[in-house]
């Protein structure tokens, strides 16, 4: 937070003027213009579908704008490919990792621009020494010869960042860089960003996370519906103002406090282990209760969910539903026993993106919706309509392919799919990952409403505000073990962080 004095050279590192980009039927960017100064972190905000990603692709040379100009250090440029953009000093750090997993870290960093010797041979020595220098600068603890696929997601993200630093970047664009990072890893990332800033680069920082933006940014620009809505100076604004600009209305972010009316125990887990992924996990879950699982990425939360859903076989321990011990052998079996899982990654695990909305919602139960040998259209549409209304899914028609919906609406499709199965126990893994602020609170409200209707809900989240906001009790995990379980009265940000970092060890069952 050292934004007391912002260097203000005459020409900004990056200036956009009247950028227009249309796709058939959509005006994705409509007259967008702002500037990014050298040595500034400029946050770019907007709901999903506001045009941020399109703008970034224009900047990175992946799209050519229909109208408008891009100036880098005052010079008008056209960029026709990512490599050309990089040569101009504009680098984009992607939200989704785009690494060649079978290749080494160094090869990935210099992908497309490997140093060469005569006859087109790769100069391995230069490659690895250059790559290692960048890794050292980023304080990465792994070798440049390591195969990328063997690294953790966070370290892969570091490789993605390292890739951007092979040139002296004038403009660095971070697109949701912390989506898969833990809090500790975020600190490292923020150091890197501040370092880049100190070297005089203009940083464009895209994120949905208000706290990060208010920690890092000097100025904040907002997009809505493809249009530019203004730039705020961080020191002169607050979250409410930013959110209002983003979604065009005010948002209630007060923490829920009303004690939930919980019913009988629906799920009991005793001493559950799965190899080294998680060990000796015990907890119980009541009807009408939201149990939050909080911990760092890799703490074993997702693996517990996968075990409860029959995707993994436990190596020890018992699972009891309504007091009866059960064995869950497959997802089909879990569904039959009333357990549903909204998976961590909706695109990879939750949705068939090319399929339409209706068919995605009825996917697990289409076998029961038959009339003679055929699937009954009417029954399917009835189910779609029910959840279309209940969850306020925004889509022009059930015929729309799910891949064309925004992240929030995609998530509602996944949730609708599972509600339609009438589960008793609903596990939601990272309910709002990559979802904009407005939809986020809708999803949170939805989870609370479901608990109110008597569902037993488990919420797994890496976001502390989310887990504190939505849960009745919170289980903190560290290295595959439950460190502590909190009620909403007990929990504070401090003791929660302590528990997931392995500091607090007095376990409370």
């Amino acid at each position, binding site marked *: 937070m050292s934004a007391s004095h912002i260097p203000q050279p005459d020409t900004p590192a990056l200036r956009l003027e009247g950028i227009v980009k249309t*796709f058939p039927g959509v005006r994705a960017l409509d007259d967008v213009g702002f500037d990014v100064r050298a040595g500034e972190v400029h946050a770019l905000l907007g709901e999903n579908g506001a045009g941020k990603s399109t703008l970034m692709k224009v900047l990175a040379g992946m799209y050519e704008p229909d109208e408008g100009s891009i100036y880098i250090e005052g010079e008008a440029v056209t960029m026709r490919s990512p490599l050309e953009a990089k040569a101009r000093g504009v680098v984009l750090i992607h939200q989704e990792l785009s690494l060649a997993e079978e290749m080494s870290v160094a090869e990935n960093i210099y992908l497309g621009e490997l140093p060469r010797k005569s006859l087109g041979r790769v100069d391995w020595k230069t490659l690895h020494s250059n790559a290692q220098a960048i890794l050292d600068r980023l304080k990465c603890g792994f070798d440049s010869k390591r195969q990328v696929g063997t690294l953790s997601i966070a370290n892969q993200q570091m490789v993605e960042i390292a890739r951007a630093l092979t040139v002296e970047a004038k403009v660095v664009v971070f697109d949701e860089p912390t989506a898969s990072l833990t809090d500790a890893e975020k600190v490292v990332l923020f150091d890197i960003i501040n370092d880049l800033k100190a070297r005089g680069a203009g940083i464009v920082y895209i994120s949905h996370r208000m706290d990060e933006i208010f920690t890092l940014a000097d100025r904040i620009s907002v997009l809505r519906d493809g249009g530019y809505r203004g730039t705020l100076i961080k020191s002169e604004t607050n979250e409410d103002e930013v959110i209002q600009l983003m979604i065009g209305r005010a948002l209630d972010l007060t923490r829920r406090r009303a004690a939930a009316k919980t019913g009988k125990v629906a799920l009991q887990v005793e001493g559950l282990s799965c190899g080294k992924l998680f060990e000796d996990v015990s907890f119980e879950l009541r009807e009408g209760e939201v149990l939050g699982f909080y911990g760092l990425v890799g703490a074993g939360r997702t693996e517990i969910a996968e075990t409860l859903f029959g995707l993994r076989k436990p190596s020890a321990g018992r699972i009891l539903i309504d007091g009866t011990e059960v064995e869950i052998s497959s997802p089909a079996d879990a569904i039959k026993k009333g357990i549903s*899982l909204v998976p961590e990654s909706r695109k990879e695990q939750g949705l068939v993106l*090319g399929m*339409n909305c209706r068919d995605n919602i009825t996917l697990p139960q289409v076998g029961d919706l038959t009339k003679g040998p055929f699937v009954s259209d009417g029954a399917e549409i009835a189910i779609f309509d029910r959840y279309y209304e209940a969850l306020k899914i925004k889509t022009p028609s059930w*015929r729309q392919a799910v891949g064309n919906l925004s992240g929030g609406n995609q998530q509602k499709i996944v949730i609708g799919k599972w509600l339609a199965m009438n589960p008793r126990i609903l596990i939601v893994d990272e309910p709002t990952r990559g979802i904009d602020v407005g939809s986020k609170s809708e999803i949170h409200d939805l989870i609370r409403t479901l608990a109110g209707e008597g569902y037993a809900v488990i919420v797994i989240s890496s976001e502390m505000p989310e887990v504190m906001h939505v849960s009745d009790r919170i289980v903190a995990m560290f290295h595959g073990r439950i460190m502590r379980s909190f009620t909403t009265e007990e929990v504070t940000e401090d003791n929660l962080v302590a528990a997931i970092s392995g500091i607090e060890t007095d376990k409370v069952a």
Partner: protein
Amino acid sequence: MSHSVLKSPLGWLAGNPIWGFIALIFIFFSFANPYFFALQNFQNILVQTSTIGVIALGMTLVMINGNIDLSVGAVVALAASLCVDIQGWSLFADWGNWAILPGVVAALLAGTALGALNGLIVWKTGVDAFIVTLGAMLGVRGLVFVYTKEQSFFAMNFSFSDFGSSSIGPIPTLAALFLICTAIVHFVLSRTVHGRNTYAVGGNRSAAVNAGIRVGPHMMINFMIVGFLAALAGVTLSSQMGAATPNLGTNYELWVITSVVLGGTKLKGGAGTITGTLGGVLAIGILRNGMNLMQVPAFYVLVILGSILIAVLLLDKQLNRKGKEELRL
């Protein structure tokens, strides 16, 4: 996807550009050659395409499912050999025309069983279908040579070979058989649970698993369907020829896959339709027939067909790129 775009005729055509292409070549050949536009020639085209067409129906299911079956050509030869050989066994000597039945049944069972085996291996071992069926393609062809001792079989019962050239009214029996199969597979794919799950498994396998769909059985059923249909093609082909040779069906897998892909089915699975496949099959049939009538030398026909395959897929990519924020690569 068949469910996502289904409004204006123009929108439908953009999703199935192959039918526009068919209209184009149909008009072209009608004007270019006096013999093309004739009922008998249309009957010819339908009979000629029925063999590849029947197999392509099954291949569409397998490919939407995210798999592929390279062994269909070999299965055609095996089924044809079994069918012709068994009906000639002395065991069935006094069965009259009924002697054909055990041959046909054995051929269809063999095809279905080989499909089941392919499916089972893909399901249980997780080895890529390309590799598994590549092995099957070589292995089954070998079996055919072992079984036939490299000899051709000739059908002694003329009723069998008459069937291949018979007609129901103006429609050749084989063409009718193909169209009936097309209708059935179309309904299986577009209206049944198995069809829906076929799309789901091919579109996103882990989402399908998470939805409790048992992926393996669906894949196996589709391999059995394509095996059955390949065997059926073997039977009809041997009926047309009144004989079976061990080299029958060579390269059929390539023609089948070409037709299916031409019809808009995606190699990586999750998308495709039977109407598209029918279009792909007819397009190739019309092109071969038309060029044949115009006496284009056979090797040039191959060159032209190859070029058209690539051109049509390119066009498809252009038509379907719009509206999506596709990256320039």
